[in-house]
Structures are given as C-alpha cells and as structure tokens.
C-alpha cells in the first residue's frame, strides 16, 4: 500500500477515530439540529397532514396513481446498494482500498433502507393497516397475497435490512471494543454493551473473519435480488414501457450506480468535515471514479436498449409511451437525466478528474439527481400514457410531495449524523491491516490489532 496511512501510527488512527466520536464541536450540533428541524418541518408535518387528509394531499390522480413517493422509494433502495453490496464485493475481491470507506458506506445502506421503508408507509393510502402485508396468523384467517411482487418486495427488503444490519454491526465489534477502551462513563457502558465483551483473542478474530466473509458472500445475491424484485413491481405490470424484461438488470445497475455516486458524496463530506484526510484519499476517489465510469456506460447501454425495444415494437402503446417520454411533457427531465447520468460521467475517463475532490463531488450529486429523475420518469411518464387514450392524464407533484421528498434527505442526514457519533466511521482495525506492522509491539494490549 502507499499513501499517507504509512506515515501513521496505530495510535493515531485510534486517536483520530475516537476523537471523531468523543469530541463534538458546535458545528456538529448546529448541523444536527438543522437536519432534525428540517426533518420535522419538511417530512413529518406534511406526512401527518397527508395521513389526516388522505393521499389527496399529494398530486396523484387518475390514471397516474403512483408518484414521487414510489420514485423516492426506488431511489433510496437504489442508494442502499452502495454500501453493503459494494463493500461485500470489494471484501471478497480483497481490494484493500475499500477498508477506509466501507463502514460509512454500509451505514448509508442501512439508513437509505430505513428511509425507503418509511417511504412505503408514506406511499400507501391506509398505512395504519400496513401490517396486513405481513404474514402472521390472525383471527380473520387472512394471509397476504404471495403472488404479489409487492409482497416479494416486503420480504426482500426486510431480509436485506436484517442482513446489512448484522453485517455492519459485526464488522464494527472490534472497533467498539477499541472505543470502549478509550472512553469513560456512559459511553464506556454503551460500548461495552455493543462490543459484546470483545477481547481480541485469536479465536475471536478467526470467528469474526469467517463469519464476516460468509455474510459478505450471502449478501451479494441478496442485494441483487432486492432490486430485481423492486423492478418487478413495474415489470410485472402490463403498462407500456414498464412491461420489460430488461428492468431487473436495469434497476440493479441503476442502483449500484447511484449508490456509488452516493458513496463519493459521503466520502467527500467525511473527509472534509471529520478530517479523515489521511484515510480517505485520492486513491479512493480514483477507484470510485473508475467504477462510476463503468457503471454509467452499462446504464447508458440499457437505456439505449429500452428506447430501441420501444421503437422497434411498433405497438401503438409502446411507441406512444416512448414518444411521450422523449418529447412529451416531461421531456426536459428526460434529457436532463441523459446529460447527468450518461454524458457527464464520461469525464471520469481522466485520472486528473477522478482524483480531484470537488469535481467528483459535483459529479456524484449530479448523477444522483439524474438517477432520481430516472425513477420519477419511470413512474410518471408510463402511467399517464396507457392503453386507453381517453383515460390519459397528467401528473404534477404537489407541494406536500416535494416537501416530503426533501424531508427524506433531511431524515437521512439526521440518521447519518447520529451514526458518526456512535459508530467509528472508519474501520480502524481494517485500516491497520493495510499498514505494515510497527517496529515495536503496539502500546496497548487490547487494541484488537491482528496478530
């Protein structure tokens, strides 16, 4: 390995990370409060109003009965594919540059999943009955409909959520232990609970590594299945421009794509505001940049395929839907998406671009805007142009919807801010793995450094 980490001592890592947890500047609190306030104002208040008034608070209508809520749902599910999936792949492929960033990446997974789950609640008309979608014995002797792709969704997401939670938690146990040993008072109590009495014996390390790898292998297919299944919500319908076999890979690629972009954003933030400069380096941005390039090409290819099938089908419904997407009411959004997700990422071909932080940040944000647009278009354009022209309609999001959309980001940020104060946001022991062992034996006994 090369880069700054080599100049580091193990202790520096500990100090840095623990500092990031223990020492909290006013900026953090300002950030946290703002985020939380925004969450309340932009997310929860509008949502409660909607619960009271009905979905009519949103802009949906007949025939466009789905709207931004579902788009956000897919978007956040997509974002969730950044972390866990990526980190699993990289873990298995032993790409060591992953180690500094994967913790926060996995955290993203977790929180985007949580947000996505909440979006489902926001989306349905009677969330107070949502439990009926879960299979449990009841006096009505009613079971959910196991043929429904939506039910597949519920299953897939809950599984994925559980998987990722265990994964991130298990990965951080040694670090909890490390923090535990460096903190006093309630923190110490908390971390000694969370570290489950980790001692750092060889057996423990052995077991951890084994289980960790096992989970990694387990989660990869899971992650892929999740987004395939999400895509089936649409692909299994017979709506023109949704009823397509390409949808599963389309969604998976899209998911990883936006996820990776998401990681870039978060990396930048961590690097900037928690000065992890030495751990998150050009190297990471360089690699992520390459990844983005590949993914964008894949994504573009699938879009071309989609357009072609639409055009080649010759079916009035398909062509009309396609035509509407490309040149209809929402056309500007479509071309914005193409610009952001197909053209802009080509810049990643240049190393100079990949290794410069701010441009990468801009790109990553642009990509995620584009990806959100994609999800929105999938919902909006196809539903308003279906088989019976006399039933065509137009869907424009309402203020409540937009506010809730922004609110989700605030919610996500809030969760993430809390995370960085609880979890060591850089995996200490794995970063250490990337360093040569020090000349003399490490100072503290139980820092859980690998033998």
């Amino acid at each position, binding site marked *: 390995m090369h880069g700054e980490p080599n100049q580091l001592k193990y202790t520096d890592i500990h100090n840095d990370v623990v500092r990031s947890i223990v020492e909290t500047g006013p900026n953090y609190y300002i950030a946290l409060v703002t985020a939380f306030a925004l969450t309340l104002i932009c997310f929860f208040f509008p949502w409660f109003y909607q619960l009271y008034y009905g979905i009519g608070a949103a802009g949906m209508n007949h025939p466009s009965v789905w709207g931004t809520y579902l788009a956000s749902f897919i978007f956040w599910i997509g974002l969730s594919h950044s972390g866990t999936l990526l980190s699993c792949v990289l873990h298995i492929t032993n790409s060591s540059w992953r180690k500094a960033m994967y913790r926060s990446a996995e955290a993203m997974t977790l929180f985007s999943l949580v947000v996505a789950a909440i979006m489902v609640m926001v989306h349905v008309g009677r969330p107070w009955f949502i439990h009926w979608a879960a299979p449990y014995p009841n*006096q*009505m*002797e009613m079971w959910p409909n196991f043929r429904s792709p939506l039910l597949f969704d519920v299953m897939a997401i809950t599984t994925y959520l559980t998987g990722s939670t265990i994964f991130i938690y298990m990965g951080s146990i040694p670090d909890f232990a490390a923090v535990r*040993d460096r903190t006093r008072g309630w923190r110490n109590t908390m971390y*000694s*609970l969370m570290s489950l*009495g*980790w*001692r750092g014996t060889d057996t423990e390390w052995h077991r951890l590594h084994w289980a960790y790898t096992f989970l990694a292998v387990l989660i990869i297919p899971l992650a892929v299945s999740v987004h395939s299944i999400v895509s089936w919500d649409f692909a299994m319908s017979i709506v023109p421009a949704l009823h397509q076999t390409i949808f599963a890979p389309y969604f998976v690629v899209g998911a990883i794509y936006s996820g990776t972009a998401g990681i870039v954003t978060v990396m930048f933030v961590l690097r900037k505001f928690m000065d992890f400069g030495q751990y998150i380096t050009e190297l990471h941005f360089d690699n992520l940049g390459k990844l983005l390039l590949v993914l964008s090409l894949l994504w573009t290819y699938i879009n071309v395929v989609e357009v072609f099938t639409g055009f080649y089908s010759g079916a009035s419904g398909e062509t009309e839907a396609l035509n509407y997407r490309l040149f209809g009411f929402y056309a500007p959004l479509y071309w914005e998406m193409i610009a952001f997700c197909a053209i802009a990422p080509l810049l990643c071909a240049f190393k100079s671009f990949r290794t410069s932080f701010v441009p990468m940040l801009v790109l990553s944000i642009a990509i995620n805007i584009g990806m959100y647009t994609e999800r929105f278009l999938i919902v909006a354009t196809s539903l308003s142009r279906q088989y019976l022209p006399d039933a065509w309609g137009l869907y424009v999001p309402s203020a409540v919807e937009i506010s809730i959309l922004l609110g989700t980001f605030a919610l996500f940020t809030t969760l993430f801010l809390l995370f960085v104060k609880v979890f060591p946001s850089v995996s200490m022991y794995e970063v250490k793995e990337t360093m040569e062992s020090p000349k003399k034996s490490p100072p503290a006994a*139980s820092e859980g450094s690998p033998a």
Partner: protein
Amino acid sequence: MNVSIQPALKSLQTAALIAVVAVVGIFVGYFIDFLITDNPEVSAPEQPIAFSHKIHAGDNEIPCQYCHTEARRSPSAGVPSVNKCMGCHNEVATESPLIRQVSEYWENKEPIPWVKVHDLPDFVHFTHKRHVQAGIACQTCHGPVETMDKISVHSRNNDGPTLLASTTGEIMNSETSAVAATQNDHWEMGLCLNCHKQHDVVDGKAVRVDDGGFDNGLDCWTCHK
C-alpha cells in the same frame, strides 16, 4: 481494563425496570378502561328503560321472534315498535314503574331510544333472515339472552355449556341444537368464519360438516359490502 458486559447491564437494570413498568402500565390502563367504561362484552350499557330479557324470554318463555318479528324475513331482526310493547302492557303489569315509562313514551308518541349492543361495522353485511331460516339458534351468536337482565354482547369466557333456544323458542342444549356454540370468544370475523367453515347448507338448514364449509359461504362478499 474491564471488558465484561456485566457491569454495564447492571447499571442499566433500573432504567430497564422503569421502561418495563411503563409498558405494562399501558396494557393495564387499557384493560381498566375496557372494564369500567361501557363495553358490551363486559358490562352491559344502560338502556333508557331497564328492559329484562330474563323476564320476557327466560321466565315467561316468550319466543324471540314474538317481538323481533322481522328476524325471519329481513336482514335486520328489528326492534319492536312501542305499540307492540303496549300491546301486552295494556293489561300486563300496568302499574310497575318501568311500564309507566313505556306508556309515557307511548302517550307522547315518542320512540324509545334503545342503545345498540350488538353492533357490526358498516362494511359488514349480515342477514338474520338466512341464519334464522337455516335453523340457527339466536343464542348461537347472542348468547343466553334469556338469562340476561341487561343485554350484553356475549363472550364465552367463563360460563359452561350455553343453553340454545331454537328459533321456534323451545329450549334445548348445545348437543341437540342445530348449531353448537362456536369456540371464538369475541364478536369479530373469526366468530362468523368458524361457523361458516364448520357448516354446510343442506336443503335450507345448516348442518355440521367436517370438510370446510359450503361453496359461497367463504367468499368475502358473502359478508362484506
């Protein structure tokens, strides 16, 4: 330095205890309210006139349908009109204070605002006609009304074998009755479902069968609307 989880857990015990107490409290509170405020399953609601089914259906063995005449020909069993009450009580027990109340209503030509005890949600379609004609005893769902002074929704928590009166009025026990009491305790979908699964309609009468219920009887639209 201590790595054990024990001390941490110890220090949390009190907090945990408080939490537990609070949660338990919620359930307790719910149940208390369930018991003390008007809940037809536990305490019968106060009626404008303390009418006793025990006296009428029990002691004097007046058949249910003498007053609830529409049960056999209409979805709703119907509440007897005031003049129906007066029909008897012109002669019977005219001096008792309760009957005086009735006759007051009658003289003022006002209806008696009975409080509804057996209440189904508005999205449920239940027809007394079909069930009565199938020979199902009123008590199957309404419980031993003839033993109740105050009418209340019947839940079979503690009382033993329910006496079931057939629709014609003569008393018989659960063995001989067309339909035995269902096992479900509460006035909810399961109650209907059990019965519909256990019974089949053979030339107009409900008969107990073991292979789950009759063809349309389990369709949601049988009872929902």
